[in-house]
């Protein structure tokens, strides 16, 4: 099995005035294709920071981040944006749906950056909604949906461009146990049936149990278990 995500000797330093805060310290991590990894660790340990680097919405101070065979640590901001649009899907803790757009329009949003026709975009968005089991809610607005439903719409949005990698930052952090369970099941399905490589940050041990691999981060360093 080839490596989908390879984080190599990555250091991330935040500068706050003259103060320097080393959040990640020469961290290395390999995620094979089709893997489902759970990243755990105490608050402030750098989980989100690492996830952002893998997803290409932030860049490391030093080191390489190779995703799908491409070192994204050296890309310009514009190149990164383009890369993100087709290579990664994002799932946030607070869903981050756009309130003025209906479910299907939210899902369709990433497709606006493709060359697909209006009809094709709509079809794909509806297909993605079907995958997450919300085909019947396509015209609902975010505030008409429950938290779990909102998160499922967000997942549909993450997979609509068919990226190889999904990143999720505490996807169940804001949900009740039942909804969380549904979301985790859905993520398992995406991993097993749709062969998505998933990197998920979570505090929830039950969520972590769903993953194949659990990695623990402590003060910017991965713990061996």
């Amino acid at each position, binding site marked *: 099995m080839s490596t989908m995500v390879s984080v190599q000797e990555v250091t991330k330093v935040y500068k706050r005035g003259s103060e320097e805060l080393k959040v990640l310290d020469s961290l290395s991590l390999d995620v094979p294709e089709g893997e489902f990894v759970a990243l755990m660790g105490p608050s402030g340990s750098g989980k989100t920071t690492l996830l952002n680097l893998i997803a290409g919405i932030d860049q490391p101070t030093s080191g390489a981040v190779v995703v799908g065979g491409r070192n994204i640590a050296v890309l310009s901001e514009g190149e990164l944006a383009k890369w993100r649009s087709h290579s990664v899907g994002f799932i*946030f803790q607070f869903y*981050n749906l756009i309130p003025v757009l209906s479910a299907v329009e939210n899902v369709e949003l990433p497709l606006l950056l493709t060359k697909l026709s209006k009809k094709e975009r709509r079809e794909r968005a509806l297909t993605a909604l079907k995958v997450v089991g919300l085909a019947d809610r396509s015209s609902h607005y975010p505030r008409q949906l429950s938290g779990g439903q909102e998160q499922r719409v967000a997942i549909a949005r993450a997979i609509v461009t068919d990226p190889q990698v999904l990143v999720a930052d505490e996807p169940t952090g804001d949900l009740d146990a039942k909804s969380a369970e549904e979301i985790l099941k859905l993520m398992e399905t995406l991993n097993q049936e749709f062969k998505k490589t998933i990197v998920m940050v979570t505090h929830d041990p039950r969520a972590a149990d769903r993953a194949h691999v659990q990695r623990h981060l402590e003060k910017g360093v991965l713990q061996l278990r």
Partner: protein
Amino acid sequence: MKYLPFVFKHLRRNWVRTTSTVVAMAVCIFLLCTLRSVLSEVDSMLEASSATRLVTRHSVSLTFNLPVAYESRIESVPGVKAVAKTIWFGGSLPAKKEGQADETEGDSTTDWSKFFNNMAVDADKFFPMYPELTIPPDQWKAFRETRQGCVIGSKLAKKFGWKVGDRFFLESFIPPYRKRSGPFEFEVSGIYDADLAKYPGTDVSTMYFHYEYLKEGVGREIGVGTYALEIANGDQAASVGKAIDALFENSSATTITETEQAFKASFIAMAGNLAFLLNGIGLAVAFTILLVTANTMSMAVRERRTEIGVLKTLGFSSAHVMGFVVGEALLLGVLGGALGVFGSETLLYGLSHAPGITEILAGMGLSGLELKPAVAALGLFIAVALGLFAGFVPALSAYRAKITDILRTV
């Protein structure tokens, strides 16, 4: 443009805010355009008032007449081109038909609702001074040759349905202009008109008849109410007027000579001040609305920091995001501006075309009131510039912000 529906979505979902923003913007642009138009009209009116026509009257009151002998003396004053005797007749249609003499002298049977302006003038001298009054040549010829002839303004003709050849009677409420045998009889010889576009404010509802007819009718010397005079050079109005008044300084009937525009001019000065004041207030109001509107638009953008962060995360370039946000603000600006300009155009067009109001405006010399393309363009430009500015500044900060910083603050 596939992103356009996205822009509209926001405006549609927040329709209350969208509407109020557009309306506020429209009101502001409306105020700006309308006030600019009124002010520029007043300005042009001020510029256009050159006085080549003067009026000499008795210094005590308009009710005192001047001696006929003044005519030749005024004519001799350097700078004076022509002089014409005029008398404000004060005649009105008798309530009684086909005017039999009233048994009781001075019995006031005047029907004031039918009152109109009528003057006895020295036609041959008077009308050449008023080139803006146009009379068909044959009618003019008939008027000159008819003792009882008169010419009436087109509006007056319309009001009473009078045609050339119609006859009517007038009786003055001023006793010296009455004759024992009854009201004066007149025949409509001609109907005059004026190009109101070229000569705004020209009166076309007066009746003019022959001075000589009045004099013969009452059977004695009646003097002259006012002398209308034309001078060669409008710049000398003041000095010529002074020279004329100096001429009669020591006589029994002293005079006041002022430009025909004098009253108008003082009105214009007043209107000018008023317009200036209105413009000042209007601009202040408009400016305030502008600031409030800009602030609302900016807030709308700021509220969407998260959304901007999400869009950027999904792979939309900073330029895309910028386009959405600025495009939206721009759209509001264009809508508001267009609405404001349209409103202003509608009002100004309405005012200058509504029966009744048009005449009042024309009376004030404001018959050319219109929204000039330059003013409309300025209004639109301000609205668009403001929309751009209000959207651009907050959008720029979102444009520059790093995704991680935006989404952290969620």
